[in-house]
């Protein structure tokens, strides 16, 4: 009787294993479902935050929409799941979200043991510190003995310890899971210093601080934080789609194509542009999507520069400079691989 059970179980096992061995399980599930499940930040101004009506805005949110446009032609075919730093990796590992676009830093451990594949970097950032102006601190090296608020489960937590150790300083960490509570603790005075990516500091100061001018962001950037969208291991085709969606926006900016003038570029003489926009077919078929995918992305979401300016640029409360995020032709690091 036991043998019978084991035989039946083994048969079921092989069926499951065989079924799972096909590549593309994630992409098939998304196509069957009809929308992309995207994990975003629960409330980081400029990157992923809902407004009071529940509409999501932000740089990471726009890239989710861009991927939805690539697959389905419609930026609304995406469902946003807010995730804390602790919840984000289990969510993408378990299949709760297909794409993690949540200002996540690309590191070796996350690429390997956590089981993620990272698309091209959408924002080159670094970790910084914010302190109240009245403390009179001018540099991060004066922070010995300070109480520091940090969100748990982030590279921020690790870099903080490394930096203070390297500089022979000590600190008291206040580690909180939810970003809203970290904000609340810092602005209530529970800690002296708030540390996270510099873009996050700018966003928090602009949107959450009772009086933004009371706080100053210290000049030191103590780490490299390349923020990139991530998918889980096991589906190369899905990974390629996400990767080349990001590259399409960068390539569009390199060629000067914006959402406003993309129709004129359909008549361009540049073969790179024709391949990108699908006038010369081939790129879409290789990815398994519609040939006009890049055209739709640029028209419905925008090129990299437009996405940047709309969400974190000079006209937003964050007022971030392009800096490292400028194109490679302008002294930055954004460089798209060739579309051929």
């Amino acid at each position, binding site marked *: 009787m036991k043998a019978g059970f084991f035989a039946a179980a083994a048969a079921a096992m092989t069926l*499951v294993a065989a*079924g*799972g061995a096909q590549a593309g*399980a994630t992409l*098939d*599930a998304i196509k069957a479902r009809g929308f992309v499940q995207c994990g975003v930040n629960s*409330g980081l101004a400029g990157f992923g935050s809902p407004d009071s009506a*529940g509409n999501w805005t932000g740089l990471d949110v726009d890239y989710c929409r861009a991927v939805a446009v690539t697959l389905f032609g419609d930026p609304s075919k995406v469902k946003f*799941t807010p*995730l*804390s730093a602790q*919840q984000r990796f*289990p969510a993408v*590992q*378990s*299949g*709760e979200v297909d794409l993690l676009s949540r200002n996540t830093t690309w590191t070796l451990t996350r690429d390997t043991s956590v089981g993620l594949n990272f698309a091209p970097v959408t924002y080159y950032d670094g970790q910084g510190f914010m302190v109240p102006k009245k403390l009179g601190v001018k540099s991060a090296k004066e922070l010995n003995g300070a109480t520091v608020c940090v969100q748990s489960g982030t590279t921020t937590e690790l870099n903080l310890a490394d930096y203070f150790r390297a500089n022979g300083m000590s600190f008291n960490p206040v580690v909180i899971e*939810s970003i*809203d*509570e970290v*904000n*609340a603790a810092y*602005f*209530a005075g529970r800690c002296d210093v708030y540390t996270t990516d510099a873009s996050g500091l700018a966003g928090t100061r602009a*949107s*959450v601080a*009772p009086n933004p001018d009371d706080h100053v962001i210290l000049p030191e950037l103590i780490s490299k934080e390349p923020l990139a969208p991530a998918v889980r291991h*096991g589906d190369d085709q899905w990974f390629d789609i996400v990767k080349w969606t990001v590259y399409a926006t960068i390539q569009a900016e390199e060629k000067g194509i914006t959402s406003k003038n993309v129709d004129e570029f359909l008549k361009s003489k540049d073969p790179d542009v024709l391949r990108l926009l699908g006038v010369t077919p081939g790129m879409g078929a290789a990815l398994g999507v519609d040939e006009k995918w890049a055209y739709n992305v640029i028209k419905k979401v925008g090129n990299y520069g437009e996405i940047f300016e709309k969400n974190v640029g000079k006209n937003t409360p964050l007022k971030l400079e392009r800096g490292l995020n400028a194109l490679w032709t302008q002294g930055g690091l954004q460089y798209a691989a060739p579309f051929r």
Partner: protein
Amino acid sequence: MTGDVHNSTVSLPDERPPSSVVGPLAWIRANLFNTWFNGLLTILIVWLLFQMIPPFVSWAFVKAQGFGATPQECRAPGAGACWAFVSEKLRFILFGTYPYNEQWRPLAAIMVVILLLAASCDRRFWRAWFPLVWVAGLALVGVLMWGGVLGLTYVENSFWGGLPLTIILSVIGLAVAFPMSILLALGRRSNMPAIRALSVAYIELIRGVPLVSLLFMASVMFPLFLPTGVSIDKLLRAQIAFIMFAAAYMAEAIRGGLQAIPKGQYEAADGLGLSYWQKMGKIILPQAIAISIPPLVNTFISFFKDTSLVIIIGLYDLLGTAKASLTDPAWRGFYREAYLFIGLIYWAFCFFMSKYSQRLERDLNRSRRR
């Protein structure tokens, strides 16, 4: 003659007992000042009450800002409680992110569940057909919350939150776990060593770990247990964790009831030639469950309170929505009002359930006392 005095029909009116024996003064002497130590304690407590209650009343009612105040008015120095915070955030705290226009549906669902619970308290309804009423009621709740039929728009369960989520998690957890717990309790008392070992292992394992770790296990490990392509909703994961948790605790309560039944009942049933399931179903379980209802109600009360832990895995029940409402930058700092409000809601539910359990226990004991 001397007999005339004894035959007098005039009787003096009864005098009232002295005020040191009846009346409020006597009561105070007997209850508050009967020993010098008690007297000291009374004075101390009355002083403490005077220190605490008037400031609280002044904060909560007299100096409080009414339901229409703005945050600036609430933050003015000398302002009391900011009840405007509660009225502003009321629908968010109670219903979470459920679509605004459809919020009558979760309200109706809560009413249905409260009616079901109230009906379950009345012993006239303890009949064999009552579980069907429960099933119908829960189906109605499902239709109201999900929609999609009868012209109601479909609302996915990632939008559910607040009080309906708390009630649904606890009620469904209890309802589904109840049959499981009966099987576990019977298994633990079984003569078959394998079944007894499995039951004991399950019960001791679940009771030995905190609910937080079970919720973690559910949220990170359940998706790994399923084959690729099959995904399981976060709410369902939390619900399964609760069901597993409740089954173990309720099994212990029922086991107490089974132990309390005199051995004579078992022996008489065996003597009548009843099979195991007939014996359990007709003789033992009805008595055992009746005896264990008070501890079962206590389990349900702690269960209801434990649903607040889902905030740790990212579900927004009543406590979760209250905490989320506190993070609004415009309304920061009014944690006292928020926590008082939901504390009152939790307290109301749990207090009435515990009063019912005490009354039930008294009733059952009265019927059994000779």
